């Protein structure tokens, strides 16, 4: 059984673009280990030669005809934007903000 360290949890946290306080991180590491230990039961299943199953549906990628349908206007697409300028989404400055 693998033991997940708080450092590993921090790594996952960064991948998931989330932040935890040190206390949250500590609680979370304990709980995370319990959940991971629980799902590790799967190791006991004999899956030798079994094809992974990504969907229960036998038909896959049922495509529609490539004909333009109704579309959103730019104004509609921007309707829920937290911040917008002249038909664009506005975000904080990107260049010069390199993080590790």
């Amino acid at each position, binding site marked *: 059984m693998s033991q997940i360290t708080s450092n590993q949890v921090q790594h996952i946290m960064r991948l998931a673009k989330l932040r935890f306080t040190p206390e949250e991180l500590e609680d979370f590491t304990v709980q*995370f280990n319990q959940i991971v230990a629980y799902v590790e039961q799967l190791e006991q299943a004999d899956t030798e030669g079994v094809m992974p199953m990504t969907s229960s549906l036998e038909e896959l990628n049922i495509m529609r005809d490539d004909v333009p349908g109704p579309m959103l206007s730019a104004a509609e697409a921007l309707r*829920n934007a937290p911040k917008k300028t002249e038909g664009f989404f506005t975000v*904080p400055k*990107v260049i010069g903000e390199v993080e590790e």
Partner: protein
Amino acid sequence: MTAAESYSELRRRLDAGETTCAQIVADSFDAIQRGSGLNAFLAQLPAEATQRAAEVDARIQAGTAGRLAGMTVALKDNIALKDAQLTCGSKILTGFTSLYSATVVERLQAEDAIIIGKTNMDEFAMGSSNETSFFGPVHHPLDSARVPGGSSGGSGVAVAAGMTCCALGSETGGSVRQPAAFLGVVGVKPTYGRVSRYGLVAFASSLDQISPFARTVHDAALITEVIAGHDPNDTTSSSEPVGSYTNGLDEADVRGMKIGLPREYFIDGMDEAVVARMKELRERLEDAGAEIVEISLPHTNYTIPCYYVIATAEASSNLARFDGARYGYRSPNAETLEEMYELSRTEGFGTEVKRRIMLGTFVLSSGFYDAYYRKAQQVRRLLHRDMVEAFKQVDLILAPTTPTPAFRLGEKTSDPIAMYLSDIFTAAANLTGIPAISFPIGKDANGLPIGAQFMAPHFQEGRMFQGAAWVEQALG
């Protein structure tokens, strides 16, 4: 009063001129008002519903009304209705309004159903008790100290408490059948691909399926029939023709039907009333000429671990879209782009959603992918094989929907695994894609409802409606 009737009865009275859609809608909002302490609704649409009722009344008069004329329907707040809110029970989507309606909503409206509001739910449908909603828990109508089940708790309560005729929820691991069982109503999980997911906010795309609640099996069959069918806007929407699910339900019979009882679904620690009601049901079925066959679904123990790996993996990917850039909550504290992502997500998501995003990110991360995610997908195929084998021997599978009746608020919130286990009997249908229906089979000593479910082979919804309709008539 009228809100508590079945749609079949309501429609008879509408066509006979004994009531109107306007009256039905007014009664519906009265019931919502009386039950406001249950916290079932996140948004009510009285103006839209009233206007719509007048239009449908005119069509009834003219004899041109659709199949669901006057049926009030509440939508779980993860199903899009154009220009209405779509919060998913989350802070991160507060203020968002839908740009289009889900395909199921368009189909309901085309048959003259009346949408009355959006219902409370576990945040992003992640929960089994409706306690993870940013907008507070939903309460059980029979005991406000108990949970209604989840994640579609608001929709379930709206139907159980007579606030609406039917409601739509969504299932990923049992989020309609489990609350249906706790609340004493009917809950249907259609075959994966049977009902379009267009306009349903994605949680785990290979499992999610829009799923209705109703007070009778007939109403459930009718609404399923209307929302089912191919949709070009969903590449996982099946082209399999939709049967008539309501046909012959009044004369439903189980004589000669082979019904499998999986031994793995009768476990230690199950509530004694659940065991007793299941035993009574089994005897009734045998008396009526059904053949009860004990079967085995040997990989059942892996259901919940398999479910939590696959569902969280897909969720971590689906919920990456909530980044504060294009819609939803953006942290006012962010000064850089990276901070916008991290702070918006950290401040916008609740604890359970973060827990699942973390688990999903972990099982998909480099070095762990094969051991967890790939393994779970292999186990998923074993679960699927179990079902395929079982259906070579039997027509339907019968099992309890949940191991216990509704539990108490707060009882499982500090123990994620205990909470996850409340989906133990439901998640296999989602993982394997088969349809299932939960229906009431009686109560426990405290008067809390108990539910059982029939599971059927892929696209054999008709068969399970027949079985459930027979049980409903037999148990009265």
